């Protein structure tokens, strides 16, 4: 009797397991393009879903938000929610908006709603205010926007591609009881703070419909965990893979590693207030010693490009200068009156050449680069004292230093104007080298008022010629962005602009 009962139980268990396996298989095979889903791992997690504020990049990365303009793969400013635009006067612009665009709550997007959204973004985000310099916005027609700026701002179309000015229905933004209604190909389905964001296809989307029905974004800040989440199959793709781990994935044919040049520049700042580096010859001598190619290979494992200027070479206005120092380091030093002492260190008027360098822990690769530079200088008779500080920006203002490692996103809207104004103008508070050049200030002023693209590129190149000649910084490398994907994922690839990640073209085919 007991054996019979056990047999029945066994049969029932086997049947249940079999049903579960079969239902799992049928679900997997049945997942066509209409119902396909994917999971991706991002290192960043938004503190809120408000697109106007410090989380705008994370919202843009989720594929839910759109701006009036966007940047294409060649970093040209192209239409997005605004189908065309023209400049009417020195500081007046007209934008014609796309028709048939609806927010995720079904409301139509028109000039009035875009105006409300732009005004909210400059009220909530100081960066948006700096980028747009808006004086007034008018709505001459249902789908036409007239923007007047406080001063000539030729980069306005490019700056309207910045995520800080994502267009949304202001009635739904910053509310606790509803998710933001934006205009992207995906709409927010579920948000769990610090954990995940689930977005689903927005069916009435005005453009090309999304291929995936749903995407789950897992927030995984730790690089090694992101890698192992991908290896274990918990996620289908991971962004910002630590460079040291790339080789592990490249050996496995289940994964593909994709890279794209970024618009970031790792650099070494010279302090113009330092008695040593006021001297241009000394800046040039130290710059010539930086082994950029060696740093690309050994520190960045080949996932970077040696920098020859502030902007990466993929930008049309990039202007570099290779092999700046024609003479040897020793010859340059001797020309400046330095002599080697008994310990083979350079000295002048009895005092040894000793350089104080700052670095910071948030970008560990910069400290490794600093050590390489330190060793190279030591080989050439220069003592470099390396000090790591917790907050580099505060240390640059409050402490004594000669050189410092630094990293900047130099053209985050594909345009040089914003960076050049804030990083190089003599009256800017964000000019860490304390570098001042009236000629450069004049050219930057001209750039701000020029809207002809070729002319702007030419001006930007002229500005870089002055920078490369005066050497307020030594540009070291432009790192690449690294993504790793499971086989079968398409349309998800790194872009030089660090906020275009999830797009309508993203798809996942499972075997």
């Amino acid at each position, binding site marked *: 009797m007991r054996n019979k009962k056990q047999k029945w139980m066994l049969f029932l268990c086997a049947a249940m397991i079999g049903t579960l396996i079969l239902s799992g298989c049928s679900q997997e095979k049945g997942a066509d393009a209409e119902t396909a889903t994917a999971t991706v791992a991002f290192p960043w997690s938004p*503190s*809120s879903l408000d697109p106007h*504020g*410090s989380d705008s*990049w994370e919202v843009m990365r989720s594929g839910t938000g759109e701006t009036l303009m966007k940047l294409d793969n060649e970093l040209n400013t192209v239409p997005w929610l605004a189908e065309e635009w023209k400049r009417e006067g020195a500081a007046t612009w007209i934008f014609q908006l796309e028709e048939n665009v609806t927010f995720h709550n079904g409301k139509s997007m028109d000039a009035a709603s875009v105006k409300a959204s732009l005004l909210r973004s400059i009220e909530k985000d*100081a*960066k948006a*205010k*700096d980028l747009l310099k808006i004086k007034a916005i008018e709505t001459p027609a249902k789908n036409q926007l007239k923007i007047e700026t406080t001063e000539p701002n030729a980069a306005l179309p490019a700056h309207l591609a910045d995520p800080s000015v994502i267009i949304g229905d202001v009635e739904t933004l910053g509310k606790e009881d509803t998710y933001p209604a934006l205009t992207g190909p995906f709409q927010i389905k579920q948000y*769990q*703070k*610090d*954990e*995940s964001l689930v977005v689903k296809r927005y069916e009435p989307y005005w453009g090309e419909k999304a291929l995936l029905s749903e995407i789950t974004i*897992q*927030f*995984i*800040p*730790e690089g*090694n*965990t992101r890698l*192992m*989440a991908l*290896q*274990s*199959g*918990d996620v289908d793709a991971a962004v910002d893979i630590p460079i040291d781990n790339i080789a592990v994935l490249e050996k496995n044919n289940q994964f593909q590693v994709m890279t794209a040049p970024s618009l*970031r520049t790792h650099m070494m700042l010279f302090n113009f207030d330092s008695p040593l580096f006021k001297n241009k010859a000394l800046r040039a001598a130290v710059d010539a010693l930086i082994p950029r190619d060696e740093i690309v290979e050994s520190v960045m494992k080949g996932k970077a490009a040696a920098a020859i200027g502030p902007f990466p070479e993929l930008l049309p206005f990039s202007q570099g200068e290779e092999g700046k120092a024609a003479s040897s380091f020793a010859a340059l030093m001797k020309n400046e009156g330095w002599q080697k002492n008994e310990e083979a260190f350079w000295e002048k008027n009895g005092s040894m050449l000793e350089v104080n360098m700052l670095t910071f822990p*948030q970008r560990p690769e910069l400290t490794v680069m600093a050590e390489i530079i330190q060793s190279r200088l030591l080989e050439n008779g220069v003592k470099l004292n390396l000090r790591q*500080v*917790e*907050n580099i*920006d*505060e*240390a640059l203002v*409050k402490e004594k230093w000669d050189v410092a490692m630094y*990293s*900047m*996103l130099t053209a*985050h809207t594909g345009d040089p104007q*914003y*960076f050049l104004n*804030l*990083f190089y103008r003599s009256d*800017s*508070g*964000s000019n860490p080298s304390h570098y001042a050049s009236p000629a450069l200030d004049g050219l930057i002023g001209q750039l701000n008022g020029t809207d002809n693209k070729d002319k702007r590129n030419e001006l930007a190149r002229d500005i870089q010629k002055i920078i490369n000649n005066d050497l307020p910084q030594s540009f070291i490398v432009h790192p690449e962005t690294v993504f790793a994907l499971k086989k079968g994922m398409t349309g998800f690839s790194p872009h030089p602009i*660090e906020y275009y990640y999830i797009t309508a073209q993203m798809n996942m085919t499972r075997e």
Partner: protein
Amino acid sequence: MKNIVRFGFERVVQLMLVVFFVSSLTFWLLRLAPGDPAYLLLSAHNIPVSNEALTNLREELGLTDSLASQYVNWLQDAFTWQWGTSYVSREPVINELLHRLPATLELAGAGLLVMVLVTFLMGMATAFYSSGWLNKIGRGAALLGSSIPSFWLGFLLIYLCSVQLGWLPSMGRGTLAHLVLPALTLGLGLGSVYARVLRSNLLEAMDQPFVQAAKARGLSKRRILLFHILKHAFLPVVTMIGTSFAFMIGGSMIIESIFSWPGLGKYIIEAINKRDYPVIQGYVVLTSFLFVLIHIVVDILYRLVDPRMRVQ
């Protein structure tokens, strides 16, 4: 009973004083430490920041007020259980912390369970087979437990159980399976160390006269072990477990970061990186409150369990 009430009252006063001093100390240390929250917020993506934007944000966040005035505001907020608003999310700090507290308590509770199980099972087994191979394993485990850093153990467990074997999720929170690896990482190390403490307490208790007396009265081995030896040897371990639980609530930052566990520890690391002063201060008040509260509970438990304490 009267003694217990008085004892409880004294501890509550102590708790208030500790929280006040800890939070005041945190306020001043934070302000002395380098870091400008306004700059960190505006330069989140390594994009230059204008002076005007910086000045406006500093004013908006109240960072341009004198330190004394900021301190008075903070005290007012703290005593009214408000704790201000997060610089980053612009949400009330109390909401931000309470939103993440359940995840931390869940992880700490599971970690404590693992720790207690390991302590008891390994401690008792190695005490009763004190000269065999089990003892050697216990000694080795204690050595490993005290010397392996938790971040390394965490990665090792993910690699073995998720990447190689595919048994458990590598990160996140949701199901019971998600809890296994972080709880093991949190509890294994401490459990194997406390097992050695319990073992030595048990061995010491076995030689006590009351055990000889129990044997002489003809009590069974199991009864002597469970109701006499273990009760006696377990008391010091209660204190350790209490301290460990408080430590797990306040100090599981690394484990939460490794496993992307959405608790207080992971949140506070982000708050420290962004110099979100109201959140850091609120966190310190909350964790010091919980820390002292757990110690009070342990003290009360100790008095209830150990008659000698009540006599004193």
